[in-house]
């Protein structure tokens, strides 16, 4: 069975990190599984964990009284789920539900933050990598907001 630090190298998020850095990050992680339909977290929950998805699809949802639950994004293998562990007030901004069987590595956000505080070089490296993901999601959200496909039904 592959160790967590070996699994991390499959993801673009951690690709290229040194062995020592991977070991530091992996020390805050554990492998988890979610059955299809179960929630990984809900909007407003404390954001004490984030995930690297290894298998399956996670749907991000928000609910409104008018439209009910709306899925606005899906994330798959190799992708980062959750960045609110990095910035106060450390609260989840949406619901996350396993669309099918999900295998992931769960990271303790406080543990990673502590290691980053102790090793600012690693902290800066991780911050750059997470920022790139957040930037890509922001760009996608802008396009989504423009609602470019003409009239609604």
């Amino acid at each position, binding site marked *: 069975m592959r160790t967590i630090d070996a699994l991390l190298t499959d993801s673009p998020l951690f690709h290229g990190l040194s062995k020592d850095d991977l070991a530091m990050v992996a020390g805050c992680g554990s492998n988890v599984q979610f059955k299809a339909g179960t929630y990984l977290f809900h909007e407003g929950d404390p954001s004490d964990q984030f995930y690297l998805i290894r298998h399956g*699809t996670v*749907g*991000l*949802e928000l609910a409104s009284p008018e439209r*009910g*639950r*709306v*899925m*606005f*994004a*899906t994330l*798959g293998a190799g992708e980062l789920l959750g960045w609110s562990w990095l910035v106060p007030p450390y609260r989840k901004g949406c619901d996350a*539900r396993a*669309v*099918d069987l999900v295998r992931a590595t769960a990271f303790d956000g406080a543990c990673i933050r502590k290691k980053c505080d102790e090793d600012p070089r690693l902290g800066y490296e991780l911050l750059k990598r997470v920022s790139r993901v957040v930037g*890509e999601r922001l*760009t*996608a959200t802008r*396009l*989504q907001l*423009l*609602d*470019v*496909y*003409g*009239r*609604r*039904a």
Partner: protein
Amino acid sequence: MAAVPERAPAGVAVVEAMAPSPWAVRRVKRETHDTMTLAIESAEGGGRYGFAPGQFNMLYVFGVGEAAISISGDPGAPQELVHTVRAVGRVTNDICRLRRGQTLGVRGPFGSAWPVDAAVGSDVLIVAGGIGLAPLRPVLYHVLAHRSEYGRVALVYGARTPGDLLYGPELARWRGRFDVQVEATVDAADPDAWHGHVGVVTTLIGRVECEPAETTAMVCGPEVMMRFTVAELEKRGLAPERIYLSMERSMRCAVGLCGHCQFGPEFVCKDGPVFRYDRIASWLRVREL
């Protein structure tokens, strides 16, 4: 007596191009709440109708007006002319209300084509948004009919909701082949009714397997979607000269006379609608155009 010219003057060709011929509706298929696909046949007989993938026709609802509509059918089946029409204005609303046996006028085909011949030997990446899949469907028909001439083939398609996806049965059929990668996404979905990908179409481009230096990308959709797509393709390493876009502007005469579709130095109706990206990149940044 004046000598008869060996070649007709250019004006004659223009007059012919401006005269619609009558075509009868043979089949109508509802694609989405506002989009129909019409198969038509010449009311004057005459069998085959040649066109290149990416070209368009001017469809004329008698007494109402004309609209430029891309040909969405199979270039390898020229006995039938197929258009997919979204009801967005008076003419297109009336086209979508046509029923079997009714007649409309057709001028065309007009415009430039997707580079299906130039792409031979390369990977082909097709990126479509919304109704933008219609002018790209002939590319898929052509490429799949000549599958061995191309490398990897991928279709990345995005729409607003699952109900807005065009050509559902064909998407499933293409996905069922083992020689085409089909990725579909919607901007938002009811989680109980959709189990596919959710997110804008650009988020799927990273999933496509292709060799950027040997990939030809063909992109059609809302202009802002195409701009975001180009940025993503360039991030993947595709050079601007390997990216083609189909532009949309108000087309009236379809032969480059009236100027309604002018886009910088180009006329979308006769120089386009398909352009190589590097030819129009600077004009895409001019907001007034």
